[in-house]
């Protein structure tokens, strides 16, 4: 990771600051030189540059449309992000500006300078200025809370002044003494107060404090050895990122104040941190003019913290604490904010603001003078969510994110995201396809595991293919439509070998349609598109079928011979995410095997990969590390997901020393093939790691492998046999399904009786174990004997022999009876 991380030289060496726009599209940095830089999120392109007259910038704050920059010459200037040009100078101080803070609606900007007073300027009308004069020394930092009604002013005398700006005349509501250190205004150490996104607490560079009683509540301690230089809450308040002047960078979990991760690859002291509002990206700038955009900032196992809804601040005596542990309840509260939670919030605010602010009508609680400014962001259909129209002051809802169902993102099975300038387009048991970004074009390399059968090839790719699929027959690529070159989305298929001249072909999708996932099988090509269509082509580019997917938007697809499995987002489940639904279709016979059945994923887990096993059964692997196979899927309505392996319970992890996860590749030869990922990686990287295989182990029971004494060993052996029985029965039913429903080869047909024998063998061993235990276990032993599948009677004979060997005569008699009943055709299953 340290290799990958390189700073972007944003400005001349010196203190540099940054700010994300609230919509997360842009990132603005300011530094000592006379230029501002505007980075586009998610793009590696050179940033836009705004040349300015000032230099030595000390602070920046941004809204979606404009930014406010403070400089050492005392000016605070407003620049438009729409035109990337200066709009006006908002205020001029006589001494250097130290910090600026924008209220959430962008209406007011608070300016801290070396002057004694803090100015709060209206960004539209610079003549409207509020002066805050209660502090006795220059102010180091200012910070608006999320509602914009309270301003925290961190003064160099070590006191945080809390001003209420809800009325025309700002009032000092609290001096918080002893929280921050006394500092000089120009040191790197920060005293900035970071408000928790739920508005009830803030973090200052020593502790967390609740705003209801201004008491210190929780401390995040133990991560830094020197003073804190920057801190930022994640957008939902579940995590806190802090940086110290000792060049450390830490992530904390809010609920437990636990240190989640500490980065040690920071080279210069970080002066400003900002989280991306939606993605797992955090950026920071240091005192050397560099900007670091850290993708996958929160390590994979903790990334779920970022996706959950707004988290309550960690307060002592929190009346909500009993629900804060449960993310789902939390969410449903956010869903109807007029519930209990709201009243608790009101209580806090009322306590805080005193009788003065408690006017009769809550609507007047805060003067919403601008009408729209305080309201929450509109959602993506361009309307405010219903919450905002609920007759309550919109401003009050701002801390609570509007609820939206979470949709599973589309992914291409077997591909990895960009890391550096390369990524895998496809990685499977045939070979691997990777692409290298050369800015103007990509270069694609296809390598095979079997070098004799196929020859590796390599080509320059002007289309910039972003998806690939590889099998024994050929390689399939697709690229996005491009608005610049009017290029439409293209599917490109390149067969490995032909007996005529090469017959690779390209086909263009209709305008505006994009491939979201695709799959290549031995007989057809499947592509799901952004318009919700499933397009099926033959291997020679002949469009066979187009149909609208029932559950949209599509997540992914997989195919095996004529079976096509498409996965899409279905209805919303109880946890606020959509349920993934799959459909399995035989495109040649035009039969639906399974229609809109559920992909059984536990709450909070995601699909990591989907593929068909070498025997043609669909398998999924989820982010919890469980491999599941679909049983009885050829009969409509009968399909069920059976776990084959829970990688978290594997023996190799039992010692607890290994920190590894697995990236699924395939299920073949009755083994799970994967790539071992170490150190919190989520995807495999270069150089290509080796494939590793693991045997299946159905999670029947968890028993420590290294059992010490004999009794434990016996019990472990017993559990092992039980697992073996369940696994053998599963494989038997998979094999017999295959034989019953397809034109199976003779090898497949002989496999069924072999599997049957395996099942009976496991049962015989279980029976022997029961007999050894004693006479009193006879009932269980008989039950085991009755489970035998063999109809020739040989297995039951063997069972009788085992009973005789252990001198369990009654059991032996009963087994003989059972064998006789079976022999004459009395079906014992009916009896039970």
């Amino acid at each position, binding site marked *: 990771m340290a290799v990958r991380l390189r700073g972007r030289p944003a400005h001349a060496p010196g203190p540099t600051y940054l700010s994300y726009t609230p919509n997360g599209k842009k990132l603005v940095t300011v530094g000592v030189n006379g230029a501002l830089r505007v980075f586009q999120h998610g793009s590696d392109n050179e940033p836009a540059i705004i040349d300015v007259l000032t230099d030595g910038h000390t602070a920046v704050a941004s809204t979606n449309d404009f930014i406010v920059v403070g400089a050492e010459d005392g000016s605070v200037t407003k620049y438009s992000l729409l035109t990337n040009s200066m709009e006006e100078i908002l205020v001029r101080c006589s001494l250097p500006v130290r910090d600026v803070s924008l209220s959430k609606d962008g209406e007011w900007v608070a300016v801290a300078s070396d002057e004694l007073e803090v100015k709060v300027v209206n960004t539209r009308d610079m003549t409207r200025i509020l002066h805050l004069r209660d502090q006795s020394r220059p102010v180091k930092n200012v910070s608006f809370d999320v509602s914009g009604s309270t301003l925290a002013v961190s003064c160099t005398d070590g006191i945080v002044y809390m001003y209420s700006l809800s009325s025309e005349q700002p009032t000092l509501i609290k001096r918080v003494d002893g929280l921050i250190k006394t500092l000089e205004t120009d040191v790197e150490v920060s005293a900035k107060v970071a408000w928790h996104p739920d508005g009830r607490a803030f973090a200052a560079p020593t502790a967390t404090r609740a705003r209801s009683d201004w008491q210190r509540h929780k401390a995040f301690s133990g991560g830094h050895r020197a003073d804190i230089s920057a801190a930022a809450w994640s957008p939902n308040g579940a995590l806190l990122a802090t940086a110290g002047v000792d060049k450390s960078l830490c992530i904390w979990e809010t609920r437990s104040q636990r240190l989640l991760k500490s980065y040690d690859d920071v080279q210069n002291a970080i002066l400003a941190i900002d989280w991306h509002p939606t993605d797992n990206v955090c950026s920071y700038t240091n005192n050397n003019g560099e900007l670091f955009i850290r993708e996958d900032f929160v390590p994979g196992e903790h990334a779920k913290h970022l996706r959950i809804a707004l988290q309550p601040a960690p307060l002592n005596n929190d009346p909500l604490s009993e629900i804060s542990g449960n993310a789902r309840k939390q969410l449903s509260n956010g869903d109807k904010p007029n519930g209990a939670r709201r009243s608790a919030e009101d209580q806090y605010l009322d306590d805080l603001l005193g009788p003065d602010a408690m006017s009769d009508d809550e609507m007047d609680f805060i003067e919403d003078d601008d009408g729209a400014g305080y309201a929450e962001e509109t959602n993506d259909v361009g309307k405010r969510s219903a919450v905002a129209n609920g007759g309550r002051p919109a401003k009050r809802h701002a801390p609570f994110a509007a609820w939206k169902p979470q949709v599973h993102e589309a992914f291409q099975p077997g591909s990895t995201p960009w890391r550096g300038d390369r990524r895998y387009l496809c990685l499977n048991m045939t070979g691997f396809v990777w692409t290298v970004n050369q800015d103007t074009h990509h270069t694609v390399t296809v390598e095979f*595991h*079997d*070098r004799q*059968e196929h020859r590796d090839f390599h080509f320059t790719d002007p289309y910039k293919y972003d998806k690939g699929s590889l099998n024994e027959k050929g390689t399939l690529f697709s690229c996005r439509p491009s608005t610049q070159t009017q290029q439409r989305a293209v599917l490109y298929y390149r067969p490995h070998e032909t007996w005529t001249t090469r017959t690779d072909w390209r086909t263009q999708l209709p305008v505006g349609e994009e491939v979201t996932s695709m799959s290549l099988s031995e007989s057809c090509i499947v592509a799901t598109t952004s318009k919700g269509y499933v397009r099926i082509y033959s291997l020679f580019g002949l469009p066979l079928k187009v149909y609208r997917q029932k559950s949209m938007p599509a997540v992914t697809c997989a195919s095996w011979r004529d079976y096509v499995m498409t996965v899409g987002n279905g209805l919303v489940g109880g946890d606020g995410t959509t349920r993934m639904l799959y459909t399995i279709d035989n495109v040649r016979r035009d039969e639906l095997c399974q229609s809109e059945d559920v992909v059984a994923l536990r709450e909070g887990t995601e699909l990591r990969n989907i593929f068909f096993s070498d025997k043609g059964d669909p398998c999924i692997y989820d982010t919890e590390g469980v491999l599941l196979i679909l049983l009885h899927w050829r009969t409509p309505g009968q399909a069920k997901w059976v776990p084959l392996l829970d990688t978290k319970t594997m023996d190799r992890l039992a010692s607890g020393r290994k920190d590894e996860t697995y990236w699924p590749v395939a299920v073949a*030869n009755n083994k799970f093939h994967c790539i071992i990922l170490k150190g919190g990686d989520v995807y495999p990287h270069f150089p290509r790691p*080796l494939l*590793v*295989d693991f045997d299946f182990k159905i999670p029947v029971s968890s028993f420590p492998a290294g059992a010490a004494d004999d009794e434990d060993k016996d019990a472990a052996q017993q559990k092992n046999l039980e697992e073996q029985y369940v696994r053998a029965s599963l494989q038997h039913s998979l094999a017999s399904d295959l034989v019953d429903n397809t034109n199976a080869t003779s090898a497949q047909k002989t496999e069924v009786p072999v599997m049957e024998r395996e099942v009976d063998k496991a049962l015989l061993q279980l029976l022997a174990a029961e007999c050894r235990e004693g006479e009193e276990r006879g009932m269980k032993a008989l039950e085991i004997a009755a489970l035998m599948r063999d109809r020739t009677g040989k297995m039951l004979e063997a069972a009788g022999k085992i009973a005789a060997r252990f001198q369990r005569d009654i059991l032996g008699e009963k087994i003989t009876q059972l064998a006789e009943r079976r022999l004459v055709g009395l079906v014992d299953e009916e009896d039970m």
Partner: protein
Amino acid sequence: MALPLPPGLTPSEVGFLCEMEHVTVIPRQTLDGLELLGGPTGALKPPFPTPLPLWLALLLKKQRRANITPPPWLSVDALTQILDFETDERTAELFSPSPNLPPATTTAPLEGDPYLAHDSLELSAPFLKDAATARAQADALPYHWLEIGHLLITHAPDDFEDLDAVRKLLRDLREVRMSKLRKGFEVLDAGGGVKMNGVGGMEIAEVRGFVGGVVDGLRKLNRSREESRKERETEERENGFGSSSYRDDEDEDML
């Protein structure tokens, strides 16, 4: 006429024997199973890892038809752990233990260890399976560790993640263990013994010449003393007198 070779296996013979060990190979092309004298080999089908005898694996590796997966104990982590054990003060007297024996397949006729019973057939090193395949135990050195490590490093250097570290660790291990063995020589005497649990085949072959020579020489010296004593005793019995000065001379000779 017998070959004029020292008794026991020479290092090159031990190196040859270790080539019968199975290693895990990732084939790069298909190959049907072979019927070999040592038993049939599995069919090779890329990219499924298959166990093959080391000699065949090296042959395929030279022809660039396969990659060899180093056994788990040949990783930097495992070797470091074993080296720590070897150099730890508390276990300074011991060699790191050899891999665990597989659970007994036959039952002992009486209560007891089937490995010690005379009439049960249980395999132990160097006949253990999977000593050098991908399934090998990670925290123990098998019998042929030195030879396999050497062969893999020389012939399949590109299959190691961190070749130099592995080479260095193997060298360290070898030196630590040899010095322990040499320490054992100090107590070599007619009745002396060195506990050599966990010592590998090549290490035995290396010290065999020296230790065998010393013990043999001691035995020869002792034999002359024994024989002379016997002679003397018979003489004494016959003549009925002894000579103390004669005995002193003999003692000086011994020094």
